[in-house]
Protein backbone atom coordinates (compact mmCIF):
# COMPACT_ATOMS: atom_id res chain seq x y z
CA UNK A 1 0.00 0.00 0.00
CA UNK A 2 2.51 2.56 1.20
CA UNK A 3 4.96 1.71 -1.56
CA UNK A 4 3.03 3.36 -4.40
CA UNK A 5 2.43 6.62 -2.59
CA UNK A 6 4.50 9.78 -2.81
CA UNK A 7 5.96 11.28 0.32
CA UNK A 8 3.45 14.10 0.18
CA UNK A 9 0.56 11.66 0.00
CA UNK A 10 1.89 9.65 2.92
CA UNK A 11 2.29 12.74 5.06
CA UNK A 12 -1.25 13.70 4.14
CA UNK A 13 -2.55 10.25 5.15
CA UNK A 14 -0.72 10.49 8.44
CA UNK A 15 -2.15 13.92 9.16
CA UNK A 16 -5.66 12.78 8.30
CA UNK A 17 -5.29 9.66 10.45
CA UNK A 18 -4.14 11.64 13.47
CA UNK A 19 -6.97 14.04 12.89
CA UNK A 20 -9.66 11.34 12.61
CA UNK A 21 -8.29 9.57 15.64
CA UNK A 22 -8.29 12.74 17.70
CA UNK A 23 -11.72 13.73 16.57
CA UNK A 24 -13.56 10.44 16.83
CA UNK A 25 -11.53 8.12 19.05
CA UNK A 26 -9.51 9.93 21.67
CA UNK A 27 -7.61 13.22 21.30
CA UNK A 28 -5.70 12.83 24.53
CA UNK A 29 -4.48 9.38 23.62
CA UNK A 30 -3.22 10.75 20.33
CA UNK A 31 -1.47 13.56 22.16
CA UNK A 32 0.22 11.32 24.70
CA UNK A 33 1.48 9.02 21.99
CA UNK A 34 2.69 11.95 19.91
CA UNK A 35 4.64 13.29 22.85
CA UNK A 36 6.22 9.89 23.35
CA UNK A 37 7.28 9.80 19.71
CA UNK A 38 4.88 6.92 19.21
CA UNK A 39 2.41 8.60 16.87
CA UNK A 40 3.23 5.89 14.42
CA UNK A 41 0.62 5.08 11.83
CA UNK A 42 1.38 1.50 11.02
CA UNK A 43 1.81 0.79 7.33
CA UNK A 44 3.75 -2.29 6.33
CA UNK A 45 4.13 -4.97 9.01
CA UNK A 46 6.39 -7.97 8.70
CA UNK A 47 8.05 -10.36 11.16
CA UNK A 48 9.57 -8.41 14.02
CA UNK A 49 9.22 -5.08 12.23
CA UNK A 50 6.65 -2.44 11.42
CA UNK A 51 6.90 0.55 9.13
CA UNK A 52 5.32 3.90 9.77
CA UNK A 53 3.18 5.07 6.88
CA UNK A 54 5.93 7.58 6.15
CA UNK A 55 8.32 4.70 5.53
CA UNK A 56 10.35 4.63 8.74
CA UNK A 57 11.07 1.12 10.03
CA UNK A 58 10.79 0.05 13.67
CA UNK A 59 11.46 -3.16 15.53
CA UNK A 60 8.20 -3.74 17.41
CA UNK A 61 8.97 -4.48 21.05
CA UNK A 62 5.41 -3.72 22.16
CA UNK A 63 3.55 -6.35 20.12
CA UNK A 64 0.36 -5.48 21.98
CA UNK A 65 1.99 -6.97 25.08
CA UNK A 66 2.70 -10.31 23.55
CA UNK A 67 -0.01 -10.65 20.94
CA UNK A 68 2.32 -11.13 18.01
CA UNK A 69 4.49 -14.09 19.00
CA UNK A 70 4.35 -15.58 15.50
CA UNK A 71 5.45 -12.30 13.99
CA UNK A 72 3.51 -9.61 12.23
CA UNK A 73 1.71 -10.66 9.08
CA UNK A 74 3.07 -14.14 9.27
CA UNK A 75 2.48 -15.53 5.76
CA UNK A 76 1.52 -18.99 7.01
CA UNK A 77 -1.11 -17.63 9.36
CA UNK A 78 -2.39 -15.27 6.68
CA UNK A 79 -2.76 -18.22 4.33
CA UNK A 80 -4.65 -20.14 6.97
CA UNK A 81 -6.96 -17.20 7.55
CA UNK A 82 -7.55 -16.73 3.84
CA UNK A 83 -8.28 -20.38 3.48
CA UNK A 84 -10.69 -20.21 6.39
CA UNK A 85 -12.38 -17.28 4.67
CA UNK A 86 -12.96 -19.38 1.56
CA UNK A 87 -15.33 -21.55 3.52
CA UNK A 88 -16.21 -20.10 6.85
CA UNK A 89 -17.73 -17.10 8.50
CA UNK A 90 -17.96 -16.63 12.27
CA UNK A 91 -20.33 -19.55 12.55
CA UNK A 92 -22.93 -19.70 15.28
CA UNK A 93 -21.72 -19.64 18.87
CA UNK A 94 -24.41 -22.02 19.97
CA UNK A 95 -23.63 -24.80 17.57
CA UNK A 96 -20.96 -27.43 17.45
CA UNK A 97 -18.42 -26.96 14.66
CA UNK A 98 -15.36 -28.68 13.33
CA UNK A 99 -12.89 -25.83 13.88
CA UNK A 100 -14.12 -25.38 17.46
CA UNK A 101 -13.74 -29.08 18.16
CA UNK A 102 -10.35 -29.33 16.44
CA UNK A 103 -8.81 -26.41 18.31
CA UNK A 104 -10.20 -27.61 21.62
CA UNK A 105 -8.52 -30.96 21.11
CA UNK A 106 -5.25 -29.28 20.14
CA UNK A 107 -5.37 -27.04 23.21
CA UNK A 108 -5.98 -30.02 25.47
CA UNK A 109 -2.91 -31.63 23.89
CA UNK A 110 -0.50 -28.72 24.31
CA UNK A 111 -1.63 -27.48 27.71
CA UNK A 112 -0.06 -29.26 30.67
CA UNK A 113 -1.47 -32.03 32.82
CA UNK A 114 -5.14 -32.86 32.76
CA UNK A 115 -6.44 -29.54 31.49
CA UNK A 116 -9.19 -30.77 29.25
CA UNK A 117 -12.19 -28.64 28.38
CA UNK A 118 -12.29 -25.30 26.63
CA UNK A 119 -14.60 -22.33 26.88
CA UNK A 120 -13.93 -19.82 24.14
CA UNK A 121 -14.03 -16.04 24.23
CA UNK A 122 -12.58 -13.27 22.10
CA UNK A 123 -10.64 -11.17 24.61
CA UNK A 124 -8.32 -12.06 27.44
CA UNK A 125 -10.42 -10.28 30.02
CA UNK A 126 -13.41 -12.33 28.95
CA UNK A 127 -11.42 -15.53 29.47
CA UNK A 128 -10.46 -14.45 32.99
CA UNK A 129 -14.03 -13.42 33.77
CA UNK A 130 -15.16 -16.91 32.90
CA UNK A 131 -12.32 -18.49 34.88
CA UNK A 132 -13.40 -16.65 37.99
CA UNK A 133 -17.07 -17.35 37.40
CA UNK A 134 -16.28 -21.02 36.91
CA UNK A 135 -14.29 -21.09 40.15
CA UNK A 136 -17.11 -19.49 42.08
CA UNK A 137 -19.75 -21.66 40.51
CA UNK A 138 -17.84 -24.89 40.95
CA UNK A 139 -16.66 -24.34 44.52
CA UNK A 140 -19.78 -22.44 45.63
CA UNK A 141 -17.38 -20.14 47.43
CA UNK A 142 -16.93 -16.43 46.81
CA UNK A 143 -13.52 -15.07 47.44
CA UNK A 144 -10.83 -14.50 44.89
CA UNK A 145 -7.24 -13.72 45.77
CA UNK A 146 -4.96 -11.99 43.31
CA UNK A 147 -1.67 -10.17 43.60
CA UNK A 148 -0.62 -6.55 43.85
CA UNK A 149 0.26 -4.99 40.50
CA UNK A 150 -1.40 -7.87 38.67
CA UNK A 151 -3.22 -7.20 35.41
CA UNK A 152 -6.04 -9.44 34.28
CA UNK A 153 -8.20 -7.32 31.97
CA UNK A 154 -10.85 -4.65 32.13
CA UNK A 155 -14.03 -6.71 32.23
CA UNK A 156 -15.70 -6.74 35.62
CA UNK A 157 -14.53 -9.96 37.26
CA UNK A 158 -11.01 -9.35 35.98
CA UNK A 159 -10.91 -5.66 36.79
CA UNK A 160 -11.63 -6.44 40.42
CA UNK A 161 -8.60 -8.76 40.39
CA UNK A 162 -6.21 -6.14 39.05
CA UNK A 163 -3.69 -5.13 41.65
CA UNK A 164 -3.86 -1.41 41.03
CA UNK A 165 -6.59 0.95 42.20
CA UNK A 166 -6.19 3.55 39.47
CA UNK A 167 -7.97 1.34 36.96
CA UNK A 168 -10.98 1.03 39.21
CA UNK A 169 -11.36 4.23 41.15
CA UNK A 170 -13.59 6.22 38.82
CA UNK A 171 -15.97 3.35 38.28
CA UNK A 172 -17.44 2.99 41.74
CA UNK A 173 -18.47 -0.35 43.15
CA UNK A 174 -16.76 -3.49 41.91
CA UNK A 175 -17.50 -7.19 42.11
CA UNK A 176 -17.11 -7.93 45.84
CA UNK A 177 -14.95 -10.63 47.40
CA UNK A 178 -11.46 -9.84 46.16
CA UNK A 179 -8.22 -9.64 48.10
CA UNK A 180 -4.85 -8.50 46.79
CA UNK A 181 -1.63 -9.75 48.34
CA UNK A 182 2.05 -9.14 47.56
CA UNK A 183 3.47 -11.21 44.72
CA UNK A 184 5.98 -13.98 45.37
CA UNK A 185 5.02 -14.00 49.02
CA UNK A 186 3.60 -17.36 49.98
CA UNK A 187 3.03 -16.43 53.61
CA UNK A 188 0.82 -13.52 52.56
CA UNK A 189 -1.18 -15.84 50.37
CA UNK A 190 -1.51 -18.42 53.12
CA UNK A 191 -2.80 -15.78 55.42
CA UNK A 192 -5.34 -14.55 52.91
CA UNK A 193 -6.88 -17.95 52.20
CA UNK A 194 -10.05 -18.62 54.16
CA UNK A 195 -12.91 -21.10 54.08
CA UNK A 196 -14.60 -18.89 51.54
CA UNK A 197 -11.73 -18.71 49.06
CA UNK A 198 -12.80 -19.95 45.64
CA UNK A 199 -9.68 -19.22 43.65
CA UNK A 200 -6.24 -17.74 43.42
CA UNK A 201 -5.52 -16.04 40.10
CA UNK A 202 -1.98 -15.25 39.14
CA UNK A 203 0.37 -14.42 36.27
CA UNK A 204 3.56 -16.49 36.31
CA UNK A 205 5.40 -13.43 35.08
CA UNK A 206 3.60 -10.23 35.94
CA UNK A 207 3.44 -8.36 32.67
CA UNK A 208 1.85 -4.99 33.25
CA UNK A 209 3.08 -5.14 36.84
CA UNK A 210 6.63 -4.70 35.63
CA UNK A 211 7.95 -8.11 34.52
CA UNK A 212 8.23 -9.82 37.89
CA UNK A 213 8.99 -13.53 37.81
CA UNK A 214 7.28 -15.96 40.15
CA UNK A 215 9.77 -18.34 41.71
CA UNK A 216 9.26 -22.07 41.26
CA UNK A 217 8.98 -22.53 45.00
CA UNK A 218 6.26 -19.92 45.17
CA UNK A 219 4.29 -21.56 42.39
CA UNK A 220 4.66 -25.00 43.95
CA UNK A 221 3.65 -23.56 47.30
CA UNK A 222 0.54 -22.09 45.74
CA UNK A 223 -0.40 -25.46 44.29
CA UNK A 224 -0.09 -27.12 47.66
CA UNK A 225 -1.97 -24.34 49.41
CA UNK A 226 -4.81 -24.68 46.93
CA UNK A 227 -4.93 -28.45 47.26
CA UNK A 228 -5.01 -28.23 51.04
CA UNK A 229 -7.90 -25.79 51.08
CA UNK A 230 -9.90 -26.86 48.04
CA UNK A 231 -9.12 -23.61 46.31
CA UNK A 232 -8.83 -23.50 42.53
CA UNK A 233 -5.59 -22.27 41.03
CA UNK A 234 -5.93 -20.08 37.94
CA UNK A 235 -2.91 -19.25 35.81
CA UNK A 236 -3.36 -16.24 33.57
CA UNK A 237 -0.95 -17.06 30.74
CA UNK A 238 -2.37 -14.44 28.42
CA UNK A 239 1.02 -12.72 28.07
CA UNK A 240 3.27 -15.61 29.02
CA UNK A 241 1.74 -18.30 26.82
CA UNK A 242 2.67 -19.65 23.42
CA UNK A 243 6.43 -19.70 23.71
CA UNK A 244 6.95 -16.22 25.08
CA UNK A 245 9.02 -17.30 28.07
CA UNK A 246 10.99 -20.04 26.34
CA UNK A 247 8.50 -22.84 26.98
CA UNK A 248 5.11 -23.32 25.35
CA UNK A 249 3.54 -22.22 28.63
CA UNK A 250 5.39 -20.63 31.48
CA UNK A 251 4.01 -23.19 33.93
CA UNK A 252 6.01 -25.83 32.10
CA UNK A 253 9.05 -24.51 34.00
CA UNK A 254 7.76 -25.41 37.45
CA UNK A 255 5.70 -28.34 36.27
CA UNK A 256 2.78 -27.04 38.29
CA UNK A 257 -0.57 -27.67 36.62
CA UNK A 258 -3.33 -25.16 37.35
CA UNK A 259 -7.01 -26.02 37.56
CA UNK A 260 -7.83 -23.32 35.06
CA UNK A 261 -5.56 -21.77 32.44
CA UNK A 262 -6.46 -18.65 30.49
CA UNK A 263 -4.95 -17.80 27.12
CA UNK A 264 -5.54 -15.11 24.51
CA UNK A 265 -3.31 -12.61 22.71
CA UNK A 266 -0.90 -14.69 20.58
CA UNK A 267 -3.45 -17.43 20.04
CA UNK A 268 -4.90 -15.02 17.48
CA UNK A 269 -1.68 -14.91 15.47
CA UNK A 270 -1.65 -11.09 15.27
CA UNK A 271 -4.63 -11.35 12.96
CA UNK A 272 -7.79 -12.41 14.71
CA UNK A 273 -9.23 -12.10 18.24
CA UNK A 274 -9.67 -15.34 20.13
CA UNK A 275 -9.23 -16.38 23.74
CA UNK A 276 -9.83 -19.51 25.74
CA UNK A 277 -10.32 -20.74 29.26
CA UNK A 278 -9.03 -24.30 29.58
CA UNK A 279 -10.09 -26.26 32.66
CA UNK A 280 -9.89 -29.65 34.28
CA UNK A 281 -12.42 -32.34 33.59
CA UNK A 282 -13.93 -32.20 37.06
CA UNK A 283 -14.90 -28.58 36.58
CA UNK A 284 -16.88 -29.63 33.55
CA UNK A 285 -19.56 -30.86 35.92
CA UNK A 286 -20.45 -27.30 36.79
CA UNK A 287 -20.66 -26.32 33.14
CA UNK A 288 -22.96 -29.29 32.62
CA UNK A 289 -25.50 -28.29 35.24
CA UNK A 290 -25.29 -24.67 34.12
CA UNK A 291 -25.30 -25.12 30.40
CA UNK A 292 -25.66 -21.92 28.42
CA UNK A 293 -25.23 -19.60 31.40
CA UNK A 294 -22.01 -18.23 29.93
CA UNK A 295 -22.26 -17.18 26.31
CA UNK A 296 -20.00 -15.30 23.96
CA UNK A 297 -21.24 -14.35 20.52
CA UNK A 298 -17.82 -14.01 18.95
CA UNK A 299 -15.96 -16.44 21.18
CA UNK A 300 -14.48 -19.42 19.38
CA UNK A 301 -15.67 -18.35 15.97
CA UNK A 302 -14.94 -20.84 13.23
CA UNK A 303 -12.44 -18.47 11.63
CA UNK A 304 -10.76 -17.69 14.95
CA UNK A 305 -10.32 -21.37 15.69
CA UNK A 306 -8.74 -22.00 12.28
CA UNK A 307 -6.30 -19.18 12.98
CA UNK A 308 -5.56 -20.61 16.43
CA UNK A 309 -4.80 -24.01 14.93
CA UNK A 310 -2.41 -22.47 12.41
CA UNK A 311 -0.69 -20.50 15.16
CA UNK A 312 -0.08 -23.59 17.26
CA UNK A 313 1.20 -25.51 14.25
CA UNK A 314 3.58 -22.70 13.40
CA UNK A 315 4.92 -22.42 16.94
CA UNK A 316 5.45 -26.15 17.27
CA UNK A 317 6.92 -26.63 13.80
CA UNK A 318 9.37 -23.78 14.15
CA UNK A 319 10.24 -24.51 17.78
CA UNK A 320 9.52 -20.90 18.71
CA UNK A 321 9.89 -21.53 22.45
CA UNK A 322 13.48 -22.70 21.96
CA UNK A 323 14.16 -19.81 19.62
CA UNK A 324 12.75 -17.40 22.20
CA UNK A 325 15.05 -18.84 24.84
CA UNK A 326 18.05 -18.43 22.54
CA UNK A 327 17.25 -14.90 21.46
CA UNK A 328 16.54 -14.03 25.07
CA UNK A 329 20.05 -15.07 26.02
CA UNK A 330 21.51 -12.96 23.25
CA UNK A 331 19.55 -10.01 24.58
CA UNK A 332 20.85 -10.77 28.05
CA UNK A 333 24.46 -10.40 26.92
CA UNK A 334 23.63 -6.92 25.68
CA UNK A 335 21.74 -6.06 28.85
CA UNK A 336 24.68 -7.14 30.99
CA UNK A 337 26.85 -4.61 29.20
CA UNK A 338 24.25 -1.88 29.49
CA UNK A 339 23.95 -2.57 33.20
CA UNK A 340 27.65 -1.88 33.71
CA UNK A 341 27.69 1.05 31.31
CA UNK A 342 24.62 2.91 32.61
CA UNK A 343 24.21 2.15 36.32
CA UNK A 344 22.62 5.56 36.86
CA UNK A 345 19.79 4.64 34.47
CA UNK A 346 19.42 0.92 34.53
CA UNK A 347 18.99 -0.78 37.87
CA UNK A 348 18.05 -4.30 36.95
CA UNK A 349 16.90 -6.49 34.12
CA UNK A 350 14.24 -9.14 34.69
CA UNK A 351 13.69 -11.66 31.99
CA UNK A 352 12.22 -15.02 31.11
CA UNK A 353 12.76 -15.96 27.48
CA UNK A 354 11.65 -12.97 25.42
CA UNK A 355 9.56 -11.49 28.20
CA UNK A 356 11.94 -8.80 29.30
CA UNK A 357 11.76 -5.82 31.60
CA UNK A 358 14.28 -3.07 32.13
CA UNK A 359 14.01 -1.61 35.60
CA UNK A 360 15.02 2.03 35.42
CA UNK A 361 16.14 4.05 38.37
CA UNK A 362 13.07 6.28 38.28
CA UNK A 363 9.64 6.76 36.75
CA UNK A 364 10.46 9.50 34.28
CA UNK A 365 13.07 7.48 32.45
CA UNK A 366 10.51 5.06 30.98
CA UNK A 367 8.67 7.65 28.89
CA UNK A 368 11.90 9.38 27.90
CA UNK A 369 13.40 6.11 26.77
CA UNK A 370 10.27 5.41 24.68
CA UNK A 371 10.88 8.65 22.87
CA UNK A 372 14.58 8.01 22.31
CA UNK A 373 14.04 4.44 21.21
CA UNK A 374 11.45 5.58 18.68
CA UNK A 375 14.09 7.91 17.23
CA UNK A 376 16.41 4.93 17.03
CA UNK A 377 13.95 2.64 15.30
CA UNK A 378 12.50 0.65 18.21
CA UNK A 379 8.93 0.73 19.51
CA UNK A 380 8.79 0.14 23.26
CA UNK A 381 6.77 1.40 26.21
CA UNK A 382 6.74 1.15 29.94
CA UNK A 383 4.44 -1.33 31.66
CA UNK A 384 0.91 -0.33 32.56
CA UNK A 385 1.16 -0.73 36.31
CA UNK A 386 4.80 0.23 36.74
CA UNK A 387 6.11 3.19 34.71
CA UNK A 388 9.71 2.72 35.88
CA UNK A 389 9.88 -0.55 33.96
CA UNK A 390 10.24 -0.75 30.21
CA UNK A 391 8.89 -3.86 28.67
CA UNK A 392 10.59 -5.44 25.70
CA UNK A 393 8.47 -8.13 24.12
CA UNK A 394 9.45 -8.49 20.49
CA UNK A 395 7.82 -11.11 18.34
CA UNK A 396 9.39 -14.54 18.76
CA UNK A 397 10.52 -14.67 15.14
CA UNK A 398 13.08 -11.96 15.83
CA UNK A 399 16.50 -12.73 14.34
CA UNK A 400 19.99 -12.24 15.75
CA UNK A 401 20.74 -9.09 13.78
CA UNK A 402 17.46 -7.60 14.94
CA UNK A 403 18.31 -8.40 18.55
CA UNK A 404 21.62 -6.63 18.07
CA UNK A 405 19.84 -3.69 16.48
CA UNK A 406 17.57 -3.31 19.52
CA UNK A 407 20.48 -3.55 21.95
CA UNK A 408 22.32 -0.95 19.93
CA UNK A 409 19.28 1.33 19.97
CA UNK A 410 19.07 0.94 23.74
CA UNK A 411 22.73 1.87 24.01
CA UNK A 412 22.28 4.98 21.84
CA UNK A 413 19.13 6.03 23.68
CA UNK A 414 20.68 5.66 27.10
CA UNK A 415 23.73 7.52 26.05
CA UNK A 416 21.52 10.37 24.79
CA UNK A 417 19.60 10.50 28.05
CA UNK A 418 22.83 10.55 30.05
CA UNK A 419 23.87 13.54 27.93
CA UNK A 420 20.54 15.29 28.60
CA UNK A 421 20.71 14.64 32.35
CA UNK A 422 17.79 15.14 34.69
CA UNK A 423 17.85 11.56 35.87
CA UNK A 424 18.16 12.10 39.57
CA UNK A 425 15.31 10.78 41.70
CA UNK A 426 12.78 13.25 43.00
Amino acid at each position, binding site marked *: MAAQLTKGQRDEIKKQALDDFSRYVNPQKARVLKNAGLDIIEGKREGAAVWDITGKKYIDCITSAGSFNVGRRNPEIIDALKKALDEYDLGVFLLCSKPKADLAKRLAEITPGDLQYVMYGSGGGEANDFAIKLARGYT*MKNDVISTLKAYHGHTGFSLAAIGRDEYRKPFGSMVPGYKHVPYNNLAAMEEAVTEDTAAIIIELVQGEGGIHLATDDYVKGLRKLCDDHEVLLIFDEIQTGFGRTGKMFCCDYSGVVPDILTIAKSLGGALYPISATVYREELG*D*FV*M*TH*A*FTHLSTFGGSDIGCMVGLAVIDFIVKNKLPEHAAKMGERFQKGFDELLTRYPELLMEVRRKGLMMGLQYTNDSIGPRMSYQLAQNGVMAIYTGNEPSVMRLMPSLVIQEDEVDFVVDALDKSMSEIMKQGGIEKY
Partner: protein
Amino acid sequence: MATGDEIWEALADFTEQCNNNKRLRKMQRDWTKILHFKAIDMDDSFTMKVVEGEIVKNDKGTVGTPDIIVETDSETMCDMFWGDINPTQKYLRGEIKVKGTQEDVMRIDVITAVIWPEV
Protein backbone atom coordinates in the same frame (compact mmCIF):
# COMPACT_ATOMS: atom_id res chain seq x y z
CA MET B 1 -49.89 -49.35 30.65
CA ALA B 2 -47.96 -49.58 33.87
CA THR B 3 -49.60 -49.71 37.26
CA GLY B 4 -49.24 -47.14 39.99
CA ASP B 5 -47.20 -49.62 41.99
CA GLU B 6 -44.81 -50.16 39.11
CA ILE B 7 -44.24 -46.44 38.81
CA TRP B 8 -43.70 -46.18 42.53
CA GLU B 9 -41.11 -48.95 42.34
CA ALA B 10 -39.40 -47.37 39.36
CA LEU B 11 -39.32 -44.10 41.22
CA ALA B 12 -37.70 -45.78 44.20
CA ASP B 13 -35.03 -47.31 41.94
CA PHE B 14 -34.42 -43.94 40.37
CA THR B 15 -34.14 -42.30 43.76
CA GLU B 16 -31.58 -44.81 44.90
CA GLN B 17 -29.54 -44.35 41.72
CA CYS B 18 -29.55 -40.58 42.11
CA ASN B 19 -28.76 -40.48 45.77
CA ASN B 20 -25.97 -43.02 45.50
CA ASN B 21 -24.26 -41.15 42.70
CA LYS B 22 -21.68 -38.99 44.40
CA ARG B 23 -20.79 -37.03 41.31
CA LEU B 24 -24.40 -36.23 40.57
CA ARG B 25 -25.07 -35.20 44.16
CA LYS B 26 -22.19 -32.77 44.02
CA MET B 27 -23.22 -31.41 40.65
CA GLN B 28 -26.80 -30.85 41.72
CA ARG B 29 -26.03 -29.43 45.15
CA ASP B 30 -27.47 -26.04 44.23
CA TRP B 31 -30.74 -27.56 43.10
CA THR B 32 -33.67 -27.60 45.52
CA LYS B 33 -37.05 -28.29 43.87
CA ILE B 34 -40.41 -29.92 44.19
CA LEU B 35 -41.41 -32.03 41.21
CA HIS B 36 -44.84 -33.43 40.42
CA PHE B 37 -45.16 -36.38 38.10
CA LYS B 38 -48.56 -37.05 36.57
CA ALA B 39 -49.42 -40.22 34.73
CA ILE B 40 -52.08 -39.00 32.31
CA ASP B 41 -53.49 -42.40 31.38
CA MET B 42 -54.43 -43.11 34.97
CA ASP B 43 -55.22 -40.84 37.83
CA ASP B 44 -51.98 -41.29 39.70
CA SER B 45 -49.50 -38.56 40.61
CA PHE B 46 -46.29 -38.53 42.55
CA THR B 47 -44.25 -35.87 44.31
CA MET B 48 -40.49 -35.77 44.53
CA LYS B 49 -38.74 -33.43 46.86
CA VAL B 50 -35.15 -32.58 46.03
CA VAL B 51 -33.04 -30.68 48.55
CA GLU B 52 -29.55 -29.66 47.51
CA GLY B 53 -29.34 -32.40 44.96
CA GLU B 54 -30.63 -35.17 47.23
CA ILE B 55 -34.03 -36.72 46.72
CA VAL B 56 -35.17 -36.50 50.31
CA LYS B 57 -38.74 -37.69 49.94
CA ASN B 58 -41.20 -39.16 47.47
CA ASP B 59 -44.96 -39.05 48.02
CA LYS B 60 -47.95 -40.51 46.32
CA GLY B 61 -50.28 -37.78 45.18
CA THR B 62 -49.35 -34.13 44.79
CA VAL B 63 -47.80 -32.46 47.78
CA GLY B 64 -46.67 -28.85 48.03
CA THR B 65 -46.28 -26.22 45.32
CA PRO B 66 -44.36 -27.70 42.41
CA ASP B 67 -41.48 -26.01 40.58
CA ILE B 68 -41.77 -28.55 37.82
CA ILE B 69 -44.66 -30.65 36.57
CA VAL B 70 -43.91 -33.65 34.37
CA GLU B 71 -46.82 -35.24 32.52
CA THR B 72 -46.72 -38.38 30.45
CA ASP B 73 -48.30 -41.79 30.15
CA SER B 74 -47.51 -44.39 32.79
CA GLU B 75 -45.40 -46.53 30.47
CA THR B 76 -43.13 -43.64 29.44
CA MET B 77 -42.87 -42.57 33.05
CA CYS B 78 -41.56 -45.96 34.11
CA ASP B 79 -39.16 -46.01 31.17
CA MET B 80 -37.93 -42.61 32.23
CA PHE B 81 -37.24 -43.71 35.80
CA TRP B 82 -35.55 -46.86 34.57
CA GLY B 83 -33.33 -45.02 32.14
CA ASP B 84 -34.79 -46.79 29.13
CA ILE B 85 -35.48 -43.58 27.25
CA ASN B 86 -33.97 -40.16 26.69
CA PRO B 87 -36.59 -37.93 28.32
CA THR B 88 -35.53 -34.77 26.53
CA GLN B 89 -36.07 -36.35 23.16
CA LYS B 90 -39.54 -37.38 24.23
CA TYR B 91 -40.14 -33.90 25.56
CA LEU B 92 -39.16 -32.24 22.30
CA ARG B 93 -41.40 -34.59 20.39
CA GLY B 94 -44.33 -33.70 22.63
CA GLU B 95 -44.57 -37.12 24.32
CA ILE B 96 -43.52 -35.86 27.73
CA LYS B 97 -44.87 -32.50 28.84
CA VAL B 98 -42.88 -30.48 31.31
CA LYS B 99 -44.06 -27.29 32.93
CA GLY B 100 -41.19 -25.35 34.42
CA THR B 101 -38.21 -23.35 33.29
CA GLN B 102 -35.93 -24.53 30.52
CA GLU B 103 -33.09 -24.56 33.05
CA ASP B 104 -34.94 -27.06 35.19
CA VAL B 105 -35.80 -29.14 32.15
CA MET B 106 -32.09 -29.23 31.38
CA ARG B 107 -31.30 -30.18 34.97
CA ILE B 108 -33.57 -33.19 34.67
CA ASP B 109 -31.69 -34.16 31.55
CA VAL B 110 -28.40 -33.81 33.44
CA ILE B 111 -29.57 -36.50 35.85
CA THR B 112 -30.19 -38.88 32.99
CA ALA B 113 -26.93 -37.91 31.32
CA VAL B 114 -24.92 -38.70 34.43
CA ILE B 115 -26.66 -41.91 35.46
CA TRP B 116 -27.21 -43.35 32.02
CA PRO B 117 -24.68 -41.65 29.75
CA GLU B 118 -25.34 -44.16 26.99
CA VAL B 119 -29.06 -43.33 26.70
